[in-house]
């Protein structure tokens, strides 16, 4: 991997482009994510940190890893803002991933409320990383609201279905100047690789690792896939033949001047 190829978010530099999502947590998962997948950023649901000593996830997070508290459980902008402030009080730093869901079944993000919360929290000095449904207008609003990155979903959270929203994420990558981090639905290393190849800045995943048969091995697979995709993107993809063959005689060969 190119040592100079860094992901910069909120003024902080990351060499790893794998972010561990929250949701399904265990010590083993965090260990594998850091050791085998090289994660330097780990998401933490503030509502999971709201616990007494017995199983507090904050105690599991290794030093040197950036905590990305999320606002899961928030149903509107107001609740997300309150949870973000609580995260800061709990000592989770000033990074925050906005998650606002008005739907308990599919857990799809509410884009409008997400923009509102982003604006408030960015003004309060948070490094705001909003989880969103990949919509170009919303992404632009998020940029204007002060987001530090944009995190479109690939497919419904926990579904392991991969890049169902491929075309729309591609538009965000093409049009938005912030890092586009693909979040939710990535089920296989090959899907992570494809997103990186398209130009995504990083991948967030949880379920794909958490439910793997061999956690450390799957973590390594993700690391390699993400690096491969990134390298392919940086190298510039070669010619892709649309119809199986290229015309050997150019159509414009008759032009003389």
């Amino acid at each position, binding site marked *: 991997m190119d040592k100079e190829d860094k992901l910069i978010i909120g003024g902080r530099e990351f060499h790893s482009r794998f972010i561990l999502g929250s949701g399904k*947590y265990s010590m083993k998962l965090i260990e594998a994510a850091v050791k085998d997948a090289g994660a330097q950023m780990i998401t933490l649901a503030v*509502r999971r940190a*709201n*616990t*007494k000593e017995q199983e507090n996830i904050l105690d599991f997070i290794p030093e040197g890893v950036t905590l990305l508290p999320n606002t899961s459980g*928030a149903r509107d902008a107001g609740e997300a803002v309150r949870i973000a402030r609580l995260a800061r009080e709990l000592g989770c730093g000033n990074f925050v991933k906005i998650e606002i869901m*008005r739907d308990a079944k599919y857990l799809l993000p509410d884009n409008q409320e997400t923009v509102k919360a982003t604006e408030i929290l960015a003004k309060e000095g948070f490094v705001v990383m909003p989880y969103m449904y990949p919509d170009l207008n919303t992404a632009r609003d998020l940029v204007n609201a002060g987001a530090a990155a944009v995190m479109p979903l690939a497919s419904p959270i*926990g579904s*392991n279905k991969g890049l169902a929203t491929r075309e729309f994420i591609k538009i965000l990558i093409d049009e938005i100047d912030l890092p586009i981090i693909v979040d939710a639905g990535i089920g296989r290393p090959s899907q992570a690789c494809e997103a990186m190849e398209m130009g995504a800045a990083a991948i967030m995943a949880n379920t794909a690792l*958490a439910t793997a048969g061999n956690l450390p091995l799957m973590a390594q697979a993700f690391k390699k896939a993400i690096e491969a995709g990134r390298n392919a993107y940086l190298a510039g993809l070669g010619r892709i033949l649309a119809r199986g063959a290229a015309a050997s005689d150019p159509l414009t060969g008759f032009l003389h001047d």
Partner: protein
Amino acid sequence: MENQFFVDSGHLSKEALIKKHELENNPDARKNHMEYLPGMEQIKSGVMEQVISQMKNYDYHKYTSKDVKAALSKETCTIEDFAALLSPAAEPYLEEMAQRAQRETGKHFGNTVYMFTPLYIANYCENYCVYCGFNCYNNIHRMKLNMEQLEHEMKVIAKSNMEEILILTGESHSMSDIEYIGEACKLAGKYFRMVGLEIYPVNTKEYRYLHECGADYITVFQETYDSDKYETLHLLGHKRVWPYRFDAQERALMGGMRGVAFSALLGLSDFRKDAFATGLHAYYLQRKYPRAEISLSCPRLRPIVNNDKINPLDVGERQLCQVICAYRIFLPFAGITVSSRESASFRDGIMKIAATKVSAGVSTGVGDHEEKYSGKEMEAQAGDEQFEISDSRSFDTMYQDIEGKGLQPVLNDYLYV
């Protein structure tokens, strides 16, 4: 075969006995169970009609193994598929159902199992529900904890490391009024991270008040969705009003509660129809209130003080497992609670398949946690229990047992916002 529910206590006066027998034997002596009592809020919901008409038309004998196999091969479980999974034709496919259920649980909940404990704060009751230990004609020791006793109980429970509590009362509006329950919620907020309530159904504005006091989850058991059967089991009191109970979860959501739990008490009536209606009730309410966090409980009838013969009839462990798997496949996002009514071995097994929440350190009595947790003899008599539990594991034992199965015990995943 039917349960023999009627037991005459020698402590009842002659007049009380006459009234009790009259209620039991003469349907005309009972109030109309479909008629609201004064003060009961009526909401125009529409959910009840949907659930009941579909339940009435549910003929589970018409499903075949072909329907069951089709249901299991589909990605999204429709209402028809759910109906097939609950049918007798699905019984030979229990293992396949369990495997599918396990995959769905894993997708939505990973390997986590939440822990909670119930706290009964009073066992006074104004209803005559023939299968319940708290019923007003049952001769049990009644008790209502005062605030000092309540705080003591909470301290004892909190010391065990429990972070989620479910506050329960008998259904007595006069002995356990809303203010009393609200104060209990406020107090619970000092010792616990999450406070749920399982109390008599109330109006929207009372749910709102309780929410403001710190409660965020409401559990109401419908007991049975067959209102004719319900009428023969709930002979007296507010609880007799079946439709008011049905709309309780919706009123709770309207009052701002985050989550609601549904349940039929399996063994009271036709369990397949009851399970079908329970699933539909949760399904339709979730569609109407997409933000609502939905969960299901799966209790079976248990013996009570003064009647140890009560049992869940045709709902064996295999049938219960079938119901729970069908719930999980139909509502993959819903929490499923399996209480200490079930044996340790059943709960251990079902946690690996579909249950996402279990109780531990359970007492269904009033004011006896210290005695049960530490063996310390009590000065005063505790209030008697609502039913006999089967799994008496303590917090620590349950925590270790969950971990020992490769699952992850979770004490809290919740913020009050």
